[in-house]
């Protein structure tokens, strides 16, 4: 038995770990050690990847690439491959994953199970939109070959299905062409939510990546930084001679060991004293960067990947992430109500991210992205006080007919879950009876 935590470090329960290493021998391991749950790189925050006192099937040993077609961009690989490894291998060859979240240190299987999204959701959808085929091992010992034509329901259940339909063993993904690793970025400070929505709408057609950071302590006059970016072609990059040296510097950085948070501080470094000055400093620093710039995709897309174990900053009690999406019609008042509730509570969030999703339905029955606006927050765990605030935010999300992101959740109620995910009963029929997680027991029958 081994203690395992999710990224939020809220618990550290013992798990019976089985390491999967051979893609032809996954189903027998599941059959022999069930009930259990697949565990990738442990980057989900709450309890979606945990199965306390039960079996946990580690998938990072399934890290082989299987085939790549240079003509079409189809990549077949095992489910434990990290997105970072795909990006670093294929970007120099002119291909890239169409969708990655704010960290590339997650497995392909985890990206599918949580149907992750990125800053370009409005342009390309979520991860599941680019999955062509899956091999799924079940605890019955069966191995299913799935694609959208022959098994659309099972595909829809598995994409965003939190690993509850089986263990993804291999996946075929469609990469997209990029001719350079560079992004042309623009940084725009904004005041108030109306300005945010104006910027988001104005950027939707011409900018592939959009995201914003918002100072959730500023209350009514919410100030923030809006960032948008487009991929640069090799020709564009060639017109900027300074990029050659910049690329060499970036490559050296990618080879070297990232900085690390070497220990868990006795109290959270993110606290009432540090938040205000931090948010102010961050705002002012970003404001100075206003205007156009060029950025390598790694620091732009995955800023925190360069600080290993950053989750330790929140101290021994860990932290809660809270990411909601609410429909656009009620987006502005709902987000304002959440910001007000946070400001009134005195709890603050370090990394508050506000982004509009595109007007498209995700493919998964339990996928998180839906048309609207999403707000991601994190709060140091201060026990009851924090939970009470999150309950108040739940009321706002519920009223707005929104939902919470399961990859980040550790505490939502069944009621909110069922209200937010209307395709739940359809999903349940596709579950593997030998798979169960702390989250599934909290929110579903088993």
């Amino acid at each position, binding site marked *: *038995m*081994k*203690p395992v935590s999710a990224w939020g470090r809220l618990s550290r329960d013992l798990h*019976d*770990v*089985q*390491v999967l*290493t*051979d*893609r*032809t021998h996954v189903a027998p391991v599941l059959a022999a050690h069930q009930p259990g749950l697949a565990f990738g790189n442990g980057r989900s925050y709450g309890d979606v990847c945990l199965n306390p006192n039960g079996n946990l099937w580690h998938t990072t*040993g399934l890290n*082989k*690439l*299987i*085939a*790549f077609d*240079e003509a079409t961009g189809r*990549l077949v690989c095992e489910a434990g491959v990290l997105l970072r490894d795909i990006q670093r*291998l294929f970007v120099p060859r002119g291909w890239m994953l169409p969708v990655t979240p704010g960290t590339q240190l997650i497995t392909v299987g985890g990206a599918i199970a949580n149907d992750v999204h990125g800053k370009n959701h409005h342009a390309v959808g979520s991860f599941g939109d680019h999955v062509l085929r899956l091999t799924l091992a079940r605890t019955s010992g069966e191995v299913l070959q799935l694609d959208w034509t022959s098994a659309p329901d099972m595909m829809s259940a598995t994409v965003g299905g939190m690993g509850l339909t089986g263990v993804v063993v291999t996946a075929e993904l469609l990469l997209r062409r990029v001719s350079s690793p560079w992004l042309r970025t623009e940084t725009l400070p904004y005041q108030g939510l109306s300005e945010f929505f104006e910027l988001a709408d104005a950027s939707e057609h011409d900018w592939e990546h959009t995201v914003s950071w918002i100072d959730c302590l500023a209350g009514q006059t919410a100030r923030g930084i809006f960032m948008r970016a487009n991929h640069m072609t090799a020709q564009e990059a060639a017109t900027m001679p300074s990029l050659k040296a910049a690329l060499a510097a970036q490559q050296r950085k990618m080879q070297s060991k990232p900085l690390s948070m070497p220990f868990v501080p006795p109290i959270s470094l993110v606290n009432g004293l540090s938040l205000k000055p931090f948010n102010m400093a961050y705002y002012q620093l970003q404001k100075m960067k206003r205007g156009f710039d060029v950025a390598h995709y790694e620091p732009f897309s995955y800023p925190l990947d360069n600080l290993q174990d950053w989750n330790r900053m929140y101290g021994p009690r860990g932290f809660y992430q809270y990411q909601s999406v609410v429909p656009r019609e009620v987006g502005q008042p709902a987000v304002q109500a959440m910001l007000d509730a946070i400001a009134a509570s005195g709890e603050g969030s370090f990394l508050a991210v506000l982004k509009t999703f595109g007007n498209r339905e995700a493919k998964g029955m339990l996928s998180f992205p839906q048309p609207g606006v999403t707000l991601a927050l994190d709060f140091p765990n201060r026990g009851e006080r924090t939970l009470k605030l999150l309950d108040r935010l739940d009321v706002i999300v519920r009223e707005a007919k929104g939902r919470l992101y399961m990859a980040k959740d550790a505490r939502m109620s069944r009621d909110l879950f069922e209200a937010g995910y209307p395709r739940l009963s359809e999903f349940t029929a596709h579950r593997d009876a030998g798979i169960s997680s702390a989250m599934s027991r909290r929110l579903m029958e088993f």
Partner: protein
Amino acid sequence: MQHIVIIGATSAMAEHCARLWVQAAPVHLTLVGRDEARTRRVADDLRVRSPQSDVHVMTSDFVDAAAIQHTVNTIVAQAPVDVVLIAHGVLSDQTTCQDDVLACDAALQVNGVSPVLFAEAFAKPMVAANHGTIAIIGSVAGDRGRKTNYVYGAAKGLVSRYAQGMQHRLAHTNVKVVLIKPGPTDTPMTSDLKAKGQKMASVEQVAQDIVKGIAAGKPVVYTPGIWQIIMLVVMHLPRFVFNKLNI
């Protein structure tokens, strides 16, 4: 293109070394494994990573001396070898080996005798060509016998002593012998230790150290480097202290 041969190519350490090699430049790789299907899967992965590399797969018996000689002859006949990495091994269970002499024999054969036979068989053509590097994966477990794994440790100790002797013999040639001593590393071979929660080095880090050590022709590579200091202490602990330790 460099011709690199990997014996035990399905081992996670060897596989990650191969990934680093193909990533740095296209190479001619000969992967030797016991299980053809598993070795092929490693080869497919490397071909996706480096379409320009030339990756071959061979199977061989690893304990039969005649088979080892035959395998080496076949490889050398195809193309002169620049680097051979001898990486196979099985982390044998100490208690099983104590209870069952046959298991003990098998563990000593595959972890000790087999690697040195491969090294010796490759040395002959390399010395004739006066070129090449023989890298053998030993273990920190070979530095001092301990109750929890002295069968594995003794086999790795044999590898250490053999490599030392070859280094002495080849000191004035262009053939280099590199002995690699990894500490506990997070690989499928150690998944039981991982399941028990033991802290281990990442296989990527260890592979980087191995590839660098081979390129530099270092006689002994401890990886991660801290193990050189740890083992220095362990080797010099007086017996009355050592015997009290449960290691």
